[in-house]
């Protein structure tokens, strides 16, 4: 029976396990199966791969850093400095160009050139519509212009597009707080 447990542990949902275990025919099946398994014990890794195409929900919350991008420095500093960081997703020429514009816009924003910063951020958005950091700075820019509605919308978009990045998620949440406070 231990084999059965092992086999179904990857199948999602408790109910499914119960149904598998309680249906008589299914029990028969597992008995047959365990006989097969006993007679030819393959390496566990091989078994895993053979099962791959069936019901598995990809867990998108685990970031997989691509081998091409340099490894990020260890997060020794708890709050990230204000700068544009390398994306975790696979970098395409377009997304690289987009981030470069985001960085330009951040400098403009720092220099108090809010309108120009917004225009540059819009351009960056056109190059990569899922550039989450770009939304963060758009929110920042609209907050400076005291357009809280737009700031909120872009903050929301930043939250969506930076959800896999813990440090950015924290910054986005902090930004949401700031918008809320400014509105009052």
């Amino acid at each position, binding site marked *: 029976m231990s084999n059965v447990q092992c086999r*179904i542990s990857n*199948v*999602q*949902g408790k*109910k*499914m396990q119960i*149904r*598998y275990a309680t*249906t008589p*025919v*299914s029990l028969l*099946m597992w008995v*047959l*199966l365990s006989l*097969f398994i006993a007679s030819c014990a393959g390496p566990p890794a*091989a*078994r895993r*791969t*053979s*099962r791959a195409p*069936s*019901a*598995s*929900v*990809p867990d*998108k919350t685990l970031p997989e850093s691509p081998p091409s991008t340099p490894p990020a420095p260890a997060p020794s500093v708890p709050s990230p400095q204000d700068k544009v960081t390398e994306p975790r997703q696979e970098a*395409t*020429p*377009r997304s*690289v*160009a987009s981030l*470069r*514009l985001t960085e330009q816009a951040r400098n403009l924003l720092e220099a108090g050139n809010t*309108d*120009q910063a*917004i*225009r*540059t951020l*819009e*351009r960056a*958005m*056109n*190059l*990569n*519509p*899922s550039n989450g950091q770009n939304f963060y700075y758009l929110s920042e820019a609209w907050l400076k212009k005291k357009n809280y509605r*737009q700031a909120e*919308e872009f903050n*929301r*978009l930043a*939250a*969506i*597009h930076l*959800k896999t990045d813990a440090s950015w998620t924290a910054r986005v949440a902090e930004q949401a707080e700031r918008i809320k406070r400014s509105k009052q």
Partner: protein
Amino acid sequence: MRNPKTRSKKRTATRLLKIVGLLLLLAAGASVVLVGNLSKEIEKRFSGRRWSIPSRVLSDTTMLYPGQTFPRKQLEAKLGRLGYRKVSRNPERKGEIKTAESRIEVFLRDFITPQQTSIGFPLRIHYQKDSIESLTRIDTGEPVPLLELEPEELMLFFGKEREERRLVSLNDVPKHLIDAVLAAEDARFFHHPGMDPLGIIRALASNLRHGALRQGGSTITQQLAKNYFLTPEKTFSRKFKELMISLVMESKYSKKEILEIYLNEIYMGNKGSVSINGIGEASFFYFGKPVNDLSISESATLAGLIRAPNHYSPFADKNRSVQRRNIVIESMFSHGWISRQECDNSISQPMATAEYETYAKQAPYFMDYLSHQLHTLYSPDALSTLGLSIYTSLDPEVQRAAEEALIKGLSRLEKANPSLLRQEPQKRLQGAIVVLQPRTGYILAMVGGRKYSESQFNRITQAHRQPGSAFKPFVFLAAMDEYTPATILSNEDTLYMIEGREWRPENYSPIPESHITMRMALAKSVNRATADLTMKIGVERIIKAASAFGFSTPLPPYPSISLGSAEVIPMEIARAYCAFAADGLLPHPISLKEVANEKGEVLERRHLTMGNATSPEKAFLITSMLRSVTEAGTARSLKDKGVSFPVAGKTGTTNDFKDAWFVGYTPDILALVWVGFDDSTPVKASGSAAALPIFADLMKSIPQHSSGGWFQPPPGIVNRTICPMSAQLAVEGRCPEPVQEFFLAENAPNESCGIHAEWGRDSGAEPFRQIIRDVKKFFGIR
């Protein structure tokens, strides 16, 4: 013009003139009022706006970066339109370009936009097939990570005078150009007091001989006075007034100021019905470059034109133009302004002019749309005189691709079905395209009809057409609170009674299944299933959901609205789809980005604004279902037509095939194509047959706008493996065709498949077959 005849004659003439001049001055002195008035007039004219300068409409700038797909031919054509001239040697001056097999070398020009001031530098663009491999500065060898190319000039707003002019400052004008102008028109300009006695004597003598004013004999100051303050009639009193003005002008302003005004004022020819004024514009018109780049021979050509621009134009008669030019060059030499060698060199130069350009209105439907907005901000007079720079969202490459795709597509349809051909141009088969950036709402291209000269009716912004199935996504969206893409709908032939009237929707093509999932119902555009959904959720909910997308046309509460019976404006459908591509946010379409004055100060600025049409999660679900349209539904032919990257799309076909639609999008770009007759006679083709191929052609010609990327599911979306037969969680190994499906987290299924989990419902043999399948699967045997 003052060809010296004989020396002795000149001397006597000078003496005579002195007397005449004195008399004239006395007369002027006597009439203090006149001089005072003239003085005031001149001052007023000089201190106020000196010239009317048409406002320029500019396209969006273009970004280049390493790794970008941008076919070399397309980039070369773009640089050509920006006025870069091909040279065979290495580019040495701004505005030159050299092309080779796998690279382009270009000396970029300076340009100013409200965003930045760019100083030109020599750039090498290395190509790897259709992609830019690298961008490198030739002078320093540094790599360029991101480059912005200057905007293209799309249109000028002319006033009644239809003058074009580019102002130059005397500091920018090279010495040899000034010398050439003086040699041709008024060699003693810097030495006479505003009138040249010899000139007047000659003019008087000539006039006495002929009994009327024939010859000008004018100095540069006089020419300016004539052009600037006087009407062109030829009378002695006018001549007198001209002299007075000249003298007053000379006393009030420096020679340099007068020369600068003159160089900007003079008439230099015609470009169609538009007059070219000033040396700055002429330099671009005849030689395609700014004045400071003009050579001696080019300067002499322009100077030679002043006498009679259309007669001596190199576009009119090259030989005559060369002869005239050489006279000017020789005169420059005889005054000692150029060396013998310069003179010989310049005379031996061939006449190399720029391509003759006319004002073909680019993107005419877009310009109309833009003008309409501009006229709410500025009067026509302001637009034609203030020299504003109007920065727009238009992408000339996309616009071109859209225009070509439409013309090609419509001709193809007519060829395939000659009954669509019409004799009268007004009744021809029509089509329209709009291309938007879904997030920003920037209008990249707009083609409002087949041929602007035949019909200026803009079918993107002015037409009211039934959307047909292109409306269905809004119906499915309305159901997303309680239904899911996996919900099963009925495809049975059903007669509904609505307020006493029968409604029996038919499918466009036979769908054999009696039941179908929402995803496939939308993918295959199944009318009966859509009607079933409409009756289940109620029309009111559909109206409510659709209303959030900002349609300005009425949405009457009839069930047939779900099949697209309510007329809409194509632009509004395109805009509404943008929300699906942009996390549910509805952008406001933008054509005008900035307006800057002559000094480059921004007067008007439009940023993107957006409203909330639906949630990011629901938008994602609709997008995901619309991707099935292009992969397994009515638009699956898109792949065969060469569009290999993921696209979400929807076809639309209305009753009796009156309208054919296709709306397609990626995260980067959205395009809507409509095909139909203005009088609604049938096009006899569906959206996928008539509109989709045009979309495919368009997308293929603008690879730089398709990154191939796809939408990431927002946080409230979960992915489940389900059995499509039950819309419940698939039972591992038992459900025959488990599929992955996206759900809103709150209405994801949590029950296992009721059909396949219960063995009792299956036939007796099924369990065993299932075992064999499982065992096979276990060992990886297919």
